[in-house]
């Protein structure tokens, strides 16, 4: 099976779906000749032309509004938002319009739109280009939210998103665009709402999203050398969220750490931890621990920036503490 990068996997998913369905088009800043700053869409304009690979001015609310209207009237737009941080510019188009039009029209209108954007710190992009804002859109009913953790996941989830009749937001970790994984040449889709058990274990469950899946897997390797068997779960989509798989794992291991690169407070980790507390309380042998980004603006300084996000070492250290039954707070 060929090994390809995450950016190639995304490129393939877009190209395959544009060939399959002529209503699919791509719109955003620098998506055509420039191929985006991360070189994800390189070559698409040559195959599909400027009618279907549309460069826009630097005007996010405008092109997002165009895409929502196009989706309502029969097209299937893929919007490229250059940095996830710019999502604040398109909140009305996304959250007030795209998320609610199906409901407000009594089901007469659909918005089959994909918003591709990114997340992730530790690239020294500074505070306005390093945020992980997926929890903010996951809070809005009507939006689905996918968080691919590898090239394989990115391709399968994006193809599913393009075929979905609802607005879907996909957050790709910008640190992972050059990460390679085995991706089959034949077509495949990854359904939403089905978590992936990346590694089986009996002692503690590590739930990770996006690049934090890799962090959890590396932490599990560190812990395995110490005789602690960690189970690693990738929810793949946080909306819908596969609590069945997560609950089943935690009921087996009795312990859980949830790891996500969004800010820790009011985030995805809090949501999953709360649901576990509600749904598996009597199976817990310790508190469910959240590990997210520090509640600070992401620093530019590499030395400081790396301290703000969970690492395999910090996850392993927390897991050891949980296994030992230490108190976290009085």
């Amino acid at each position, binding site marked *: 099976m060929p090994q390809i990068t995450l950016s190639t996997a995304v490129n393939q998913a877009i190209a395959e779906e544009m060939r399959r369905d002529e209503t699919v088009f791509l719109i955003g800043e620098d998506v055509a000749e420039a191929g985006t700053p991360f070189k994800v869409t390189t070559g698409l304009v040559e195959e599909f032309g400027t009618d279907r690979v549309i460069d826009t001015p630097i005007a996010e609310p405008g092109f997002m509004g165009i895409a929502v209207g196009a989706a309502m009237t029969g097209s299937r737009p893929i919007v490229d938002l250059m940095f996830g941080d710019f999502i604040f510019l398109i909140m009305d188009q996304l959250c007030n319009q795209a998320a609610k039009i199906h409901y407000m029209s009594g089901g007469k209108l659909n918005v089959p739109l994909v918003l591709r954007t990114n997340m992730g710190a530790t690239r020294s992009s500074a505070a306005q280009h390093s945020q992980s804002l997926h929890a903010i859109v996951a809070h809005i009913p009507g939006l689905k939210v996918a968080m691919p953790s590898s090239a394989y996941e990115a391709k399968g989830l994006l193809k599913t998103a393009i075929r979905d009749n609802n607005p879907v937001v996909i957050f790709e970790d910008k640190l992972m665009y050059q990460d390679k994984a085995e991706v089959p040449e034949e077509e495949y889709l990854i359904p939403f709402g089905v978590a992936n058990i990346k590694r089986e274990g009996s002692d503690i469950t590590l739930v990770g999203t996006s690049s934090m899946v890799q962090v959890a897997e590396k932490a599990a390797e560190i812990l395995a050398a110490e005789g602690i068997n960690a189970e690693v779960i990738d929810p793949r989509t946080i909306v819908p969220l596969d609590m069945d798989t997560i609950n089943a794992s935690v009921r087996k291991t*009795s312990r859980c750490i949830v790891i996500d690169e969004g800010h820790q407070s009011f985030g995805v980790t809090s949501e999953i931890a709360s649901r576990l507390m509600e749904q598996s309380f*009597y199976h*817990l*042998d*310790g508190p469910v621990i959240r590990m997210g980004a520090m509640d600070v603006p992401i620093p530019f300084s590499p030395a400081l920036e790396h301290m703000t996000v969970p690492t395999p070492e910090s996850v392993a250290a927390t897991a050891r503490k949980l296994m030992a*039954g230490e108190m976290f707070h009085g």
Partner: protein
Amino acid sequence: MADVIMPALGMAQDTGKLVQWMKAPGDAVVTGDVLFEVETDKSVMEVEAQTDGFLTQVSASDGDDVPVGQVIATISASAENPTAAPAAAPVKPVETAPEPAAPTPEPKAPTSSATPPSSDRILASPKARRLAAQEGLDLGKLAASGVPMPYHVSDLAALRDMPATSGQTVVMAATKQITARCARSGSRDFMDWMQADGAIMVTPAVMFASFASGAYRAATETPTIIVQMSDPDGAGTHLRNPDFVRLSMPAPETEEDATFVLHDLSDSFLTSLRLGDTALPTLSIGVDGDSYLITFEFSSEHMDDSQGVAFVSGLARRLADPLHHLV
């Protein structure tokens, strides 16, 4: 019986001022009668009765500011007890089933319902607590042995190896709970018929005691049944074999020890009591709309599970259709 509430007459209204009652407690009312006047920021409105009956349990007075949605009176089928209903406050706090293996320096008094002070609290994970309860293990013995808290499942192994309970530690049998719901219409018709046909006033409390005693006898074959009629303050009369006397007669009071406790909640805001305090089998009967809610707590020391089920089923059957009791 229908609740009379302070209505919301404006979009942003928190309270309404009760200008004056147009009916007095105990008055007969028919649907459409003006019950009281309420003043909002804009106007004074009249509030009408939504059902026929007697105005009872009036808990707000002329001039009171009352939160919207609050029950301020009840329209009952009879004029009895027209005064204010007791607030829920004097009732003992509802607490969960007692930690089956909590450390008790002295045998726990049956009426104890206080939470132990935090210094005595056992810190343990939910799973460790659940497993300890299932196995009848006393986490307090770990604390007494100096094992540092908090306790986890891994600490239970040491606990299992400790010698069996002795001395002053009391392991209370786990509380079991059975609940049932049945329509009130049958009992209501029965009470109305007794009143109309024989001018016999049957109160819910008398009926509950008689039916519960009969059902208890049928389920457990207990020869003598003493029913402790519980008051909210914990005292209460003991009735001897209330199912042996006619409903029109008072059952003989006695000083004998009670067979079970009966809480009649039908004239209160409470629907059920689950105090987890099962020195005696404990029955509560409350009202929820057109249903009776029956809650029965007992332990294996009192009866086995099938007897408990038979008792509650039999009682529900009698309340739903009193003819079952009479045959």
